[in-house]
C-alpha cells in the first residue's frame, strides 16, 4: 500500500464574501497521523473537504503524493474518506457498501473480493458482511465506513469527525481501533475532531485551528505542555488550564505577582526578555502541588468545592484575591470544603501569556 504525503500551499477558500481559509500552509508527511483540532466553525472540516476535493478552492495548491491535485476529481486524488454520519448506502449490504465503488471503477472481481475480505477481517466485520446498515449498531456502521475507505487502498485516509455520533464508551473503543489500524497500515491519516482527547491520544502531530488559522502545529506533548497562546492553552486539556491574571515583576529574580501572592519564575523558559507588564499565568490542574505552610513559595487558598473523579479528585479553590482555580489530587485526599490549603506553582510547569495579545511569553 502506498503512503502519500500531503502538501498544502497558501490555500484560500471562501464562500461568497466570507473567507474561511487564507494562505494556509500545511505539510503532512507520509505515514503521519495528523489531527486537525478546533471548535466548530474554525475551518478544519473545510480544509479536509478541500483536500478531498469536495469543495472548490479559490487559490493555492494541494499536492497528494507529489502530484498536484488541486483541480482533480475526488476519486482521482488517491484519497479515501470516512464521514461523521457514516454515509453508508442504506439499501446495500455491508459487502456491497464496501465493494460498490470498486465495482463501478471496473476492478476485477477476485481483486475486489480479496480487498473486501481483508478489510472485513481487519475490522472484525466478516460475520456482518450480508447485513444492511440498518441492522448494525453505530459503532459497527462506522467500522463499515472505515472498511469502505480501506478497500480503496488510498495513499491518504481522511476522517471527518468519525466518532462524534457515537456514545462515550464506543468512542473510546473505536479510537483505540483507529490507532491500531494506523500502526498496522502505516498509512497517512488526516483526522478532524473537536474532541481534544481524541486529538491527544491519536495524533503524531496536532494542528490546533481557530478562525481559519493554524494556531499551533506540534506534537501532542508539546501542544499540551507549551501552548503558544491562550486559545490553545484553554482548548486543549480537561479539566481546563487555570488562568490567573497578574503582573510580571523583575527583582532579584523574575516573579509573577497576583494580589498578595508571589510566584517565583526561576526556571521558567521565557521566549523573550521579560518586562514589567501585566500577564496571565496558566497552570494545569495536575501541576499544582500541595506544600507546607512554611514553604516560602506557598500560596494559601480556601477550598470551595471537591469533585471526586474516581482515579483522582478535583479540588476547586479560591485565592485571597478571589481568583478561582482547580487542582488535581489523589482520590484519598482528606480535603473538606472550607479548609485552607497551601499550594505551590512549580515554575517549570507554568505557561505565561501576554495579557493583551494572549501570546506565550
Amino acid at each position, binding site marked *: 500500500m502506498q503512503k502519500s504525503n500531503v502538501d498544502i500551499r497558501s490555500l484560500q477558500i471562501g464562500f461568497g464574501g466570507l473567507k474561511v481559509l487564507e494562505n494556509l500552509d500545511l505539510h503532512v508527511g507520509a505515514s503521519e497521523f495528523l489531527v486537525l483540532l478546533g471548535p466548530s466553525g474554525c475551518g478544519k472540516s473545510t480544509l479536509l*473537504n478541500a483536500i*478531498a*476535493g*469536495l469543495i472548490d478552492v479559490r487559490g493555492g495548491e494541494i499536492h497528494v503524493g507529489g502530484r498536484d491535485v488541486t483541480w482533480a*476529481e*475526488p*476519486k*482521482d486524488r488517491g*484519497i*479515501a*474518506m470516512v*464521514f*461523521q*454520519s*457514516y*454515509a*453508508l*448506502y*442504506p*439499501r*446495500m449490504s455491508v459487502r456491497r457498501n464496501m465493494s*460498490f*465503488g470498486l465495482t*463501478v*471503477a471496473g476492478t476485477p472481481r477476485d481483486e475486489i473480493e480479496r480487498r473486501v475480505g481483508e478489510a472485513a477481517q481487519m475490522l472484525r466485520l466478516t460475520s456482518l458482511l450480508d447485513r444492511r446498515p440498518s441492522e448494525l449498531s453505530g459503532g459497527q456502521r462506522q467500522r463499515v*465506513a472505515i472498511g*469502505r475507505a480501506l478497500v*480503496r487502498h488510498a495513499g491518504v485516509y481522511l476522517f471527518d469527525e468519525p466518532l462524534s455520533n457515537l456514545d462515550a464508551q464506543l468512542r473510546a473503543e473505536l479510537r483505540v481501533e483507529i490507532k491500531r489500524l494506523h500502526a498496522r497500515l502505516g498509512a497517512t491519516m488526516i483526522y478532524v475532531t473537536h474532541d481534544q482527547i481524541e486529538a491527544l491520544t491519536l495524533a503524531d502531530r496536532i494542528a490546533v485551528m481557530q478562525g481559519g488559522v493554524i494556531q499551533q502545529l506540534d506534537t501532542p506533548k508539546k501542544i499540551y505542555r507549551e501552548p503558544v497562546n491562550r486559545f490553545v492553552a484553554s482548548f486543549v486539556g480537561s479539566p481546563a488550564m487555570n488562568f490567573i491574571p497578574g503582573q510580571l515583576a523583575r527583582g532579584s529574580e523574575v516573579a509573577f505577582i497576583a494580589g498578595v501572592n508571589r510566584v517565583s519564575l526561576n526556571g521558567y523558559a521565557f521566549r523573550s526578555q521579560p518586562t514589567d507588564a501585566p500577564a496571565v499565568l496558566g497552570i494545569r490542574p495536575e501541576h499544582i502541588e500541595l506544600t507546607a505552610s512554611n514553604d516560602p513559595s506557598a500560596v494559601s487558598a480556601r477550598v470551595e468545592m471537591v469533585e471526586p473523579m474516581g482515579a483522582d479528585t478535583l479540588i476547586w479553590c479560591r485565592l485571597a484575591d478571589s481568583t478561582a482555580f482547580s487542582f488535581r489530587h489523589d482520590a484519598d485526599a482528606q480535603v473538606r470544603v472550607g479548609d485552607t490549603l497551601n499550594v505551590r506553582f512549580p515554575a517549570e510547569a507554568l505557561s505565561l501569556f501576554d495579557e493583551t495579545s494572549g501570546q506565550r511569553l
Partner: protein
Amino acid sequence: MRLSLNSRLSAISALLPALLVMLVVYIGATSWTVWMSLTNSRMLPNNNFVGLRQYEMLLGNDRWITSVHNIVIYGLLFVSLALLVGFLLAVAIDQRVRAEDTIRSIFLYPYSMSFVVTGLVWQWLLNPTLGIQHVLRSWGFEGATFDWIVRPETAIYCLVIAGVWQASGLVMAIMLAGLRGVDDEIWKAARVDGLPKWRVYVSIIIPMMGASFATAAVLLSTGVVRLYDLSVAMTNGGPGIASEVPAKFVMDHLFERANIGLATAAATTMLITVIAVVAPYLYWRARKGEVR
C-alpha cells in the same frame, strides 16, 4: 379510567355527526348500491331480485369492456409516466438551479387546475385543426400529423398525456422532499467513491426513496379509479366509445340511460376490484406493523 356520564355524553355527541355520515353515506349507500345491482331496476329503483343477471349483461356489454380496457391502459401508463416525469423534474430541480422556487411553483401549478379545465385545454391543444398540428403546419411543416385525439385507437393516450401533465407536479413535490432528505454526506461519499451521478440516483438514491414512491403511487392510483371528468371534458368518451372509462359508464347509465341495475353492477365491480387490490396491501401493512 371511568369517565363521568356527562363527559361521556359530550364525547358521544361530538362523534355523532361523523358516525352518522359514516353509517348513512358510506356503509348505507354502498350497501344500497350493491343491493340495487342485484335487482332489475331501470329508471327508478325497485326491489325485484334477479340474482347476477346484471353482471352477466355487464360482461357482455362492449362499452363496459372498452371502459375496463381503457382504465387498465390509462392506469398503468399514467402512474408510471407521472412517477417518471415527476421524479426527473425533482432531480432536475435538485441540481441547485437558479430560481428554484419559481420553477417549482410552475411545475406544481397544473395540479391546482380541475380536470375539466385540464381536459378542455388539452382538447384544444390536441385538436388537429386548432392545436399543435395546426401550429406546426402553419410554420411550414406541411406533413406534421398529431391527430391522436380524433383516432379511436389512440384517443385514450391523449387522456394519459393530459393526466400526466396535471399530476407530475405533485409527484415532483413529493420526490423533491424525498431527495432533500438524503444526507449530504452520502453524496460526498459517492463522489469519493467515484460514482457517476446517474449511478448514484439509480443504485443508491432511488432505493432509499421507497416511501416517496409509495406515497405518490397511492395518490395517483386513487386518481385512476375516479377518472371521469377528464374523459368527459376532453373527448366525452369518443370518438365513438373509444375513450370510455368505468366511472363514466356508471354515471351515464345511472342518469342518462336510465339503467340503475346495470350502473350499480358496474359500480360494485369497481368496488370489488379496488378491494381486491387494496386488501392484500393493508393486510401486509398490518402484519408488518405487528412484527415491529
